[in-house]
């Protein structure tokens, strides 16, 4: 009886063949993307590229939470900026190697995620957003007052050191390929995470939370798990960023930074794997470009936000997926 009323998309007879070529096309797309990323530092400014990659990973981590569990965190700067401080401090003051320093950042961010998540996951929707915002503001004040962050000066002149003792990271290219590797690993972790049994449960929780409870899943723990995972990955991005720029400052723990990462995700496409990369690229480029035009960045950022929300909520990548070409390539956008 449903057939007259709901239009169910029945797969065309040639669907199997079509999806075969689409898979090839997608693989080709990914390969081209990878090659571009590998060659990019020879054409573009490496530090600029590294910044984009760091923010892209940050946005991907954020997206893991928003896009796949439906939780909008307005406090992710805490993990990004917090990890930057931890890594910078570990490397500069304790003399940790870069890899251990990054690990310190990731662990620190995960612990922060555990604490913030513990409070925030008690509520949903906009409450969740407001609580994470408030808690991250608290963390901001902590960073402002704690001695090891050096207040407004920030932790400066952080040595990049030698990766595994022999790769000299003060060479831009070495650093770039480390960042690229971290980014790709991060992306793979996220991909595995959402396409795993755990991810399946997350998806079902997002679909119908009460039902998931009644099936015996302790929803809070799954959400917390996803939250901590997202925090740790954001921390990975923040830790690496502090090595790239060789400093950690208050900017990265402000709530405006949380807003920026939301913008990147929204612009690129919530719930798409590479949307955040596109979004981060755009926002970072825009920030850099506007810096020399004398036009206030916040106004543009604000307008981009509003336009995105009003006109293309799926974001650039999402719109592409939903477009005819995107669908032909076998992409799917569902939110």
């Amino acid at each position, binding site marked *: *009886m*449903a057939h*007259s*009323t*709901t*239009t169910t998309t029945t797969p065309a007879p040639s669907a199997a063949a079509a999806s075969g070529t689409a898979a090839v096309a997608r693989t080709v797309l990914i390969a081209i993307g990878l090659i571009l990323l590998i060659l990019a530092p020879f054409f573009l400014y490496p530090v600029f590229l590294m910044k984009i990659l760091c923010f892209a990973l940050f946005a991907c981590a954020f997206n893991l939470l928003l896009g796949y569990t439906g939780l909008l965190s307005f406090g992710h700067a805490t993990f990004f900026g917090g990890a930057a401080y931890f890594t910078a401090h570990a490397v500069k003051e304790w003399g940790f190697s870069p890899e251990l320093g990054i690990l310190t950042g990731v662990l620190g961010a995960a612990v922060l995620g555990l604490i913030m998540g513990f409070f925030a996951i008690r509520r949903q929707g906009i409450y969740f957003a407001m609580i994470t915002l408030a808690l991250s503001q608290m963390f901001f004040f902590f960073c402002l007052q704690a001695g090891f962050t050096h207040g407004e000066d920030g932790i400066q002149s952080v040595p990049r050191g030698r990766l595994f003792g022999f790769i000299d990271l003060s060479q831009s290219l070495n650093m770039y390929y480390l960042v690229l590797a971290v980014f790709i690993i991060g992306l793979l972790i996220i991909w595995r995470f959402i396409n795993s049994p755990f991810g399946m449960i997350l998806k079902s929780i997002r679909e119908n939370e009460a039902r998931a409870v009644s099936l015996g899943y302790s929803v809070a723990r799954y959400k917390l798990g996803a939250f901590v995972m997202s925090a740790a990955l954001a921390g990975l991005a923040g830790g690496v960023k502090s090595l790239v720029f060789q400093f950690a400052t208050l900017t990265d723990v402000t709530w405006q930074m949380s807003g920026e990462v939301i913008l990147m995700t929204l612009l690129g496409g919530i719930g798409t794997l590479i949307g955040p990369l596109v979004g981060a690229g755009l926002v970072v480029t825009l920030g850099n470009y506007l810096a020399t035009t004398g036009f206030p960045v916040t106004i543009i950022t604000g307008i981009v936000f509003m336009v995105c929300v009003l006109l293309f909520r799926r974001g650039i990548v999402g719109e592409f997926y939903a477009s005819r070409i995107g669908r032909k390539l076998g992409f799917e956008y569902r939110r």
Partner: protein
Amino acid sequence: MTALLEVRNLNSWYGESHILHGVDMNVGEGETVTILGRNGVGKTTTLRTVTGIVRARKGEIRFAGKDMMQVPLHRTAHHGIGFVPEERGIFSTLNVLENLMLPPEVAKGGMTLDEIFELFPNLHERRNSPGTRLSGGEQQMLAIARILRTGTRLLLLDEPTEGLAPVIVQRIGEVLKTLKQRGMTVLLVEQNFRFASRVADRFYLMEHGQMVAEFKVGELPERMDMLHKVLGV
């Protein structure tokens, strides 16, 4: 009998799904008409389209001779169409009295509070408690009573007996009969066939977003076979 409500070739969509595929139907002044049909055939959608909650994209709705297709939702009530939704729509932040007083009066001749309380003594007793503290049946009474106060000419009732205790279903049947005596026109959607057959003058049978049959209450016995096949009653 003049038709108070005339519907011709009505087509409605929810987003991209086409739900009503050309509904034709009349409801005469003072008549009680019931739409029967299985789940999901579009009964509720029909009522919602007539009210204006769902916008029809094609077809014609005439009420008391006036074209209703372009009338915005918040104006339909003023023409005399009162809608009681499936889920009743009692407001929890308002008490019974406030719930009753909520819809603006659209025409003279609506029931006074006294008349309403006479018809539904339970409501009088609980007039100060929050609307959703009432039992399901009382909520249903409140939902009907609320519309009667506005002086509406046509009452659209969507499954008024769903989920109600049998004893309440009986009460509501009695109320509908009283209303009929007062000349109220009613368009009813009902799954509960037994109840429908007691209150209706005429039936439409709906399938796949269209009316597939129409008959008077007197013709029921000869139609039972068909109804059995379609509805399983």
